């Protein structure tokens, strides 16, 4: 009789890394469909090119350095998808290609591949593009084809945070940004922006789905979005920013960042306490960049900066052993 001898446990949960990653991709699909609907078929091509190049780059690198080949485990596809989601629709096709190659080769594989990269590859790729071709990134916003409601005309041509940055002294525009109509459109995603960030509704649905599946931790999105909302509302009340906290939560890439990029396992803390600190830190940096930085949007750089702080956060917050009991009724 031949028996297998191994250390306990002898049963395992039916789950794997590819399954988690593909579930995250599925959670992004509603927002993706919305962006195809509002920006046209070009959005689809951008994402396909981006994902394809990501897989191809990963495969070439893994073959060249003779590592285990895992290019279909979904992580490269997710990186490509998230990077494309961070681009405006009119961007030339070579931009996502260059960005994805940077993300996979420099940010991911150079550090050892999945599990070892210290910054989010998709965001690193985006930061690389923003730093190298700022013109291509900032002036090519496009309004959704059906979003041209008369009042919203001004802000649908440019991303709302950009409008705010340029016109914060103009009371007419500010009051329009603060209006209920503006908030509604921001929530539904009827405005200009990058591919994936516009529809808070669909991103929220995807995020809640992942939280319900227990694939991402609710602490990071909650602390991140909460910090931005509360701080911005306070600054609004003290007159430092002309628009209220809700506008700041819904505008820009906060939902995409908080639910899908700050929660990236590899580049966020693994302890509960660390995740609170990480989320709050992302929120504070986002607020600082949006109010006083040169860029209108700060989500990308906030997450990248906090990624670098993760080892320090984990070192500072030693685990508390023996948890208290939980009472359910």
């Amino acid at each position, binding site marked *: 009789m031949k028996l297998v001898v191994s250390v306990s446990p002898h049963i395992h*949960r039916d789950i794997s890394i590819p399954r988690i990653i593909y579930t995250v991709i599925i959670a992004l699909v509603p927002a993706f469909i919305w962006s195809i609907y509002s920006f046209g078929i070009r959005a689809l091509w951008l994402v396909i090119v981006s994902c394809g190049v990501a897989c191809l780059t990963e495969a070439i690198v893994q073959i060249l350095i003779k590592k285990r080949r895992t290019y279909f485990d979904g992580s490269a596809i997710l990186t490509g998808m998230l990077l494309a989601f961070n681009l405006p629709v009119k961007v030339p096709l070579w931009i996502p290609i260059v960005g994805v190659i940077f993300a996979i080769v420099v940010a991911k594989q150079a550090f050892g591949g999945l599990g070892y990269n210290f910054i989010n590859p998709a965001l690193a790729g985006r930061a690389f593009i923003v730093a190298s071709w700022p013109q291509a990134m900032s002036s090519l916003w496009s309004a959704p084809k059906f979003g041209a409601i008369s009042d919203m005309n001004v802000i649908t041509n440019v991303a709302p945070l950009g409008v705010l940055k340029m016109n914060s002294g103009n009371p007419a525009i500010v009051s329009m940004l603060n209006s209920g109509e503006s908030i509604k459109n921001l929530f539904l995603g009827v405005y200009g922006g990058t591919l994936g960030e516009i529809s808070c509704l669909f991103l929220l649905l995807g995020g809640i789905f992942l939280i319900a599946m227990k694939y991402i931790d609710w602490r990071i999105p909650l602390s991140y979005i909460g910090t931005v909302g509360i701080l911005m509302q306070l600054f609004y009340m003290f007159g430092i920013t002309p628009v209220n906290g809700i506008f700041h939560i819904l505008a820009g890439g906060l939902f995409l960042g908080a639910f899908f990029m700050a929660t990236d396992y590899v580049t966020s803390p693994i302890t509960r306490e660390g995740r609170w600190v990480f989320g709050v830190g992302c929120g504070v940096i986002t607020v600082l960049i949006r109010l006083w930085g040169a860029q209108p949007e700060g989500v990308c750089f906030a997450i990248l900066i906090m990624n670098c702080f993760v080892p320090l956060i984990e070192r500072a917050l030693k685990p*508390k052993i023996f948890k208290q009991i939980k009472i359910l009724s």
Partner: protein
Amino acid sequence: MQVRTFLGGVRPHSKKITQNNAIEIMPIPKMVVIPLSQHMGIPAKPIVEVKMRVKAGTKIGKIGGEVLSPASWTRIPNRPYEADSRASCNIHSSISGIVKGIEPYFSSSGEKVLSVVIESDGTDEIELYADEAVSPDEIIKRVEDAGIVGMGGRAFPTYIKLTSRKDKSINTIILNVCESEPYLTGDSRLIMEKTREVFEGAKLIMSVEGAKRCCVGIGNNKIKNLWQIKAIAKEFGFYVHILRTKYPQGEEKQLVPVITGRKVPPGGFPFDVGVSVYNISTVYAIYEACKIKKPLIERVITVTGRVKQPKNVQIRVGTLFKDAIEFCGGYSEEPAKIIMGGPMMGIAQADDNVPVIKTTSGILVQSRRDISLYEEYPCIRCGTCVSVCPTGLIPSRIADYVEKNKFDEAKKLYIMDCMECGSCAYICPSKRNLVHLIKYGKIKIK
């Protein structure tokens, strides 16, 4: 009603297929192999010789070192292991017959230990004690003589536990019937069928420890005649606590705070907060030793998994696994893994020719399609292991340090407080062998 639970833990599919099977008494096997080390600490010394005739209940191994008195049993803070290493325990023959040999034999604990092989003569004569044990001192003496150990798996000699508690102020004892391991049903069958006997045993323990209160912790998934147990508990003045089914609810350090609200300090024991926890099989063994005058020679185990008729079996200590499986109809599929205990913490066997020992709570047979041989991925730091660890450790980081031979760093992350419940390795999406690495690290540090 308030249902309490601890933070962390996992919920594997319970698969309690033998839940409604009454305990069956297995006929005496042709041969038993009784290891002289079925407990923590020093092995027992053999006091029989080859070709000697023994009865069931004859003492065949006596305490290896000195009998530990409360004064000599010193506790070293944060190091439970040192204190236990001098313990030892008596061993009895479980059948009547002729001693065939005293030789090293593979035990189901995974080690090769000196064992007494006894061939049955078919008569099953039994040697009982002369009288019942009544007073606390008599009870301790009897428990020591009857070779009773903690039958939940830790195998710490119970007489040391009882004596060392006499000077501690214990006010609550807890009967542990959680059985949170999947598949195993022996303990819950025992409380269903032998409720009064078990509660009598608990009364004996309370009289020794001077405890005022007795709580029974039962998982909420399984007991059908709960109202009966509750009624009997009321007669005895015991409290029944229904606990959420979650693994590892049966661990002392999870059970004590959930039932009493008192937190056991890291590195400490339940008695530091005035509580002592007894596995129900141990309590039943104490009852048998004191009232039925029988030493510990048999116990209830669950034979389950890929066998033709999964059963709860009352079985003699030393019965070989293959005989037990034969009694349950044999294998229903080609076995790929035979496990002593439950699937979460059990020990995989290399052979079915190993004996049932005092701490065997079950025999689980897995076939090829049950066992999971996965490709290991690198850790993606998802943190699931952190969220399920009932002790509040960071299993993935401890394992990383062990992998890189950084044992000091692992120690700083409280590797020694890990109880190896296996929740982290069960839940890990990368299928890392976390428990393996942690066990290895502990051995290296010790």
